[in-house]
């Protein structure tokens, strides 16, 4: 057979297709990456600035957009301190670094990503498990510093190990969790009833 194969069966056609499809897709991804990063810098509409930890945060169903949305309310200082954006960032940063150093992600999920041995932390700040907004900060810090004594196992016998978290680090983690709960996550998790919700 010396006939030339039809275009769809020729090597050079598929080679070119592979190159163009890959290059095109990657180019689109790069453009979207620039856009996504700029829409999600801290201080944007979707990802609030770190000083949001000075405010009351809630998470409610928004009928207009048909999904759950974070609701930023009036002042509600964390540990009784009003922090500048810079100081708030430093505190959240300490929390984030501690969350990484303690390997939280290999038991918990953050924004739904991680391991599945312990609860999701996306809206942990708003969880009803902290009893009331007044007791919450104190309970969280105590729990983080000595999870065994303050265990919250919900009947599962699964206990968080003592990770030697200092008080400053614990406060950083609480700040990080509070800030994270203010991120617009397109309605994930769905149907979440917060500590602020009235029965």
């Amino acid at each position, binding site marked *: 057979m010396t006939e030339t194969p039809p275009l769809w069966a020729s090597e050079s056609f598929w080679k070119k297709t592979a190159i163009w499809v890959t290059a095109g897709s990657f180019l689109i991804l790069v453009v*979207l990456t620039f856009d996504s990063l700029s829409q999600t810098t801290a201080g944007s509409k979707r990802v609030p600035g770190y000083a949001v930890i000075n405010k009351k945060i809630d998470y409610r169903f928004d009928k207009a957009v048909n999904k759950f949305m974070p609701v930023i309310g009036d002042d509600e200082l964390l540990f009784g301190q009003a922090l500048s954006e810079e100081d708030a960032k430093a505190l959240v940063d300490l929390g984030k670094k501690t969350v990484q150093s303690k*390997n939280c992600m290999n*038991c918990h999920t953050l924004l739904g990503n991680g391991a599945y041995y312990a609860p999701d932390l996306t809206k942990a700040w708003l969880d009803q498990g902290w009893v009331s907004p007044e007791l919450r900060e104190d309970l969280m810090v105590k729990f983080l510093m000595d999870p065994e004594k303050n265990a919250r196992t919900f009947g599962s016998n699964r206990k968080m190990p003592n990770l030697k978290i200092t008080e400053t680090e614990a406060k950083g983690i609480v700040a990080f969790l509070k800030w994270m709960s203010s991120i617009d996550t397109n309605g994930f998790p769905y149907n979440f009833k917060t500590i602020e919700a009235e029965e």
Partner: protein
Amino acid sequence: MSTEGSEAVIQQASGWLDKARTQWQHFNTWLELDSSHLSPGRQLSVKYFTVAVILFFAQILFGLLAATQFLAPGFLYEILDFSVNRMVHINAMVVWMLYGFIGCVYWLLEEESGTEIVGLKLGNIAFWVLTSAVTVVVLVYLLIQIGPGKDSSLWLINEGREYIEAPRWADIGIVVVILIFFYNVVATFSKGKWSGIAGVLTLDLIALAGLYVAGMFYMTNITHDQYWWWWVIHLWVEATWEVLVGVIMAWSLMKLLGVKRKIVEIWLYIEVALMFGSGILGLGHHYFWIGTPEYWLTIGGFFSALEPIPLVAMVVHALYDAGTHSFKNSNHPAVAWIIAQAFGNFFGAGVWGFMHTLPQINLYTHGTQWSASHGHLAFFGAYATINIAFFYLAIQHWRGNVWMGGGMANNWRWKWALGLLNGGVLGMTIALLIAGYEQSFIERAVGGSTWGGYFDAQNHPAFVSAMAWRLFFGLVTAAGFVLLVWDLMTIGKTETRKAQVIE
């Protein structure tokens, strides 16, 4: 301590050392492997395969520990916590697969380029550097585990980002080693000859090495952190690794079944177009819920729905080629594992991925055992299988290219290893899927993902029994692994016939 005392200790130690050396020699004599059958490049390749098998064992061992903790949370509490076991489990997996891939590429490099590996010495040094670094990283994971919330912890102990936990110093080392590997590949093809397979491989390795760098930065903003983190994880696992497997598969089909180069290379281009065409923007399915804009719901949903298509193409490719050659091949276990790869990749990565990839269902399944179910079948089906196929190919040549077809001694072993490993992983996948369904329903849809909802789902009898079945099938997988290793060490030992020649 007195001089006599220390002398006694030294004597005892040297006695043990001698004993160990003798044992090792006995073991080697028993193995009867003759490295003179292998070219220097392939001797390097089997070093990578050997470490890959050891890490495969670590993956299974730490997986079993973590699976036990789901049923008995007090097990190894505050000694080796779930987080540690799970981290070693997934890291061992990523690293053994990378070792396997590097081994596969070194295996085919000389034959494909028609010349000797250019930087063989450098390649050997890189192997020992990487292996020492991996050992240190694992020891630090196990013995030090965590550090204070400071940069030094991220640099020296653990970065705390799932899959790429390796501390920053190791990241830099990995990049250097990969660059040496990349140099060897490119320089060897340049010295010898280029081919379609060589071209795709080279471009894919550039992407693979470059993408890793995207995961080497610390960011306070968790949305940005996870954005780049997925660049590495997704674009490795669902794009560049898949193409790498396509390259390895294409080459092995030529060698094992005698498929024509023109056919495999056209298929390879089609697969690259489909894989990158769907996989690059399919990245969007990880950007549904991390704070990124809403357009990702559409883009991610659409392109990730296309992701199974190249995997179907790969099944067709492997089966059609095997069929047209009436399954006549030079290495039965290797071809069986390649067929397992085609199906495992399609079901594990394709079907199991598609089942929960659309945002409408992912809202409930994201971050549940559903992902674990998908992860187990996909990683095993797509990547473990092809590496195991190459282990068999390597051992065949290590023994002097002996017969590995019908009528082999102890034929049952490789078949049972194949059955137990595939059955074990499939069993775990189904158990985790049941747990995932239950979790999506009770924790997510009803419980709204609160901590109360989470534990309601974890304490539910359906979940608990699913975890028990997962552990059982984990043990089945481990049994399959033991048999696999035994088989790899003994297969072809008494064989005198030469391998079947495939035209």
